[in-house]
């Protein structure tokens, strides 16, 4: 069993949803990321989602776009992202790391080389925003061979037929995009998200996480009532951006926010897993 499955299994026994904060690798500088990851784990993160910087992040809102631009300005390449994962693994052999990025840097590295190196570095999952399962068969096979779960996004616009295709192709967990929009958009319709998660859970036994639009502890607490993982990206990255080049301050600020999210999730009335068990 991989780290992602183990983590969900352990959380299921604790009747709690996973907290998954997102940071862009190398933002605001390459050396900041590993300490930031450790701090988030200490503050209560169950898994880390790590963004691979890309020049044209077409599914991201301004906050994560700018994080990508800051990292690229510091010369952060895909190899550096994998080095960050490997360095994180030295001290933390347990917390899953899910990479999130766009296809072109992975194509440039070569699917086979990328999958092997990402596996060796200790990455556990990969979300490629612009790679639907129909176009991703080759990469997904190579990922699995290297112990990496291909994680897919589901959207409010996903039809029931596609839902099945995606659930069949996915492993690790399913990532439900909780709104029509880019990362960091506002106004989550909690009732709609709750209904959709229930529908998705009828078609897969995989855990279902929710992301895109969870910006504060209160929302995280509400979503934790019915989702298996709470993914918070732009709200974390915004706090890093507010600290400019003061990496230490960014680390404290992010840790405090993660603690706040964790408390809210724990005081939620229990995860969907708990409700089912």
């Amino acid at each position, binding site marked *: 069993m991989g780290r992602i499955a183990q983590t969900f299994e352990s959380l299921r026994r604790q009747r709690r949803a996973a907290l998954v904060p997102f940071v862009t690798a190398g933002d605001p500088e390459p050396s900041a990321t590993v300490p930031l990851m450790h701090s988030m784990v200490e503050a209560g993160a169950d898994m880390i989602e790590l963004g691979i910087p890309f020049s044209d*992040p077409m599914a991201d809102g*301004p906050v994560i776009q700018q994080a990508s631009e800051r990292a*690229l300005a510091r010369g952060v*390449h895909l190899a550096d992202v994998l080095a960050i994962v490997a360095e994180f693994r030295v001290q933390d052999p347990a917390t899953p790391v899910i990479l999130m990025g766009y*296809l072109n840097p992975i194509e440039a*590295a070569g699917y086979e080389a990328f999958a092997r190196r990402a596996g060796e570095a200790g990455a556990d999952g990969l979300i490629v925003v612009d790679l639907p399962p129909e176009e991703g068969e080759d990469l997904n096979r190579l990922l699995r061979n290297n112990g990496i779960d291909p994680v897919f996004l589901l959207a409010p616009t996903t039809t029931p037929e596609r839902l099945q295709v995606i659930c069949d192709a996915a492993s690790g967990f399913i990532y439900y995009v909780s709104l*029509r929009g880019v990362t960091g*958009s506002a106004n989550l319709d909690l009732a709609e998200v709750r209904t959709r998660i229930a529908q998705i859970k009828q078609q897969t036994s995989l855990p279902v996480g929710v992301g895109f639009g969870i910006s504060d502890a209160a929302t995280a607490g509400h979503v934790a009532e019915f989702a298996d993982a709470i993914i918070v990206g732009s709200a974390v990255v915004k706090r890093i951006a507010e600290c400019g080049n003061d990496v230490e301050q960014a680390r404290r600020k992010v840790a405090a926010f993660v603690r706040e999210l964790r408390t809210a999730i724990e005081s939620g009335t229990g995860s969907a897993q708990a409700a089912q068990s």
Partner: protein
Amino acid sequence: MNAVEPSVNYRYPDARGHFGPYGGTFVAETLMRPLAELRDAYQKYMHDEDFLAQLDADLAHYVGRPSPLYFAERLTDHFGGARVFLKREDLNHTGAHKINNTVGQALLAQRLGKRRIIAETGAGQHGVASATVSARLGLDCVVYMGREDIKRQAINVYRMKLLGAEVVPVESGSKTLKDALNEALRDWVANVEDTFYIIGTVAGPHPYPAMVRDFQTVIGRETRGQMLAQTGGLPDAVVACVGGGSNAIGIFYPFIEDAQVALYGVEAGGDGIDTMRHAAPLCAGKVGVLHGQRSYVMEDEDGQISATHSISAGLDYPGVGPEHAWLKDVGRASYVAVTDAAAMEAFHLLARKEGILPALESAHALAYAGELARELGRDANIVVNLSGRGDKDIHTVAAQQGITV
């Protein structure tokens, strides 16, 4: 006549939008459903007699088609080789080939009940064409345009505003066409229910490359008939500029099965393709994935998309339509690059010899046609797609001469 018999069978893309290894659908999940709806609508209406009749009527009475095929005698004399014919897309309503496609897509939007149009634009021609058809059909229109392009295409920005469109400056990345496309995709993701995205070129996820091509092939169909009528045969070569590649595919496509017609796509060589400052992915790029499709792109060794340079905003794009990538690989079309300086020279040449100001985009094709005319010699016939008029570029041209207009 033997000369017009098809010599190969060309049937692309496949059902999933692939041209060989190129094309496809590389987008975020949210867009999969609207793209499927668009594909279904496009497949339905491209065989719907009412739709096609309305399209033909609009092309005739609103756009002003057919556009002339003009024998450029003094230009031919100047080049001293093959006879050069100009396909006058610059004479279309709004001054470029872009309107052929926006008329078609706007009719589709209307059929789908979408009341809001979004578009990206580089030189502003596609933005103007989108604003134009939106005004005519009473649809809201939002055009995304890079801040850099807004600076160099002030006239078109004002034209779009006069037509009632909202022009949104894009500040991210290199602030040019590629970033405008990113921003339009972000808008579409957020507004899929009521919004129709009119992509202006033969790039993007399936079905755009095939659909935009089909709306633009009117150029090549007319050219074919006009050449047969004026010269009694097919041309020896067809030359068109390639940014995303819509005017080129539009004129190439009806000749694809005529193996004796050589097809030349001319990319923006900028300062030269041996420098880093150009926009010629087919000549000097690599295979990659950008904006929903696999094709040739300009990228660094890490797969980050490169900033491009061309004096012509409409060609200043790091990607290219997937069908061009395929035509290059199978050898059916040849792709070359022409520098800023050579394009500028061709701009002035056409002005002085024929009394036509070409768009700087089209000037790239003209510059290459000069070389080709000398190479092919006096017995040959070349068609150049004069994809747009140059009024929008006079500030750029004047600045090159040190003049402020």
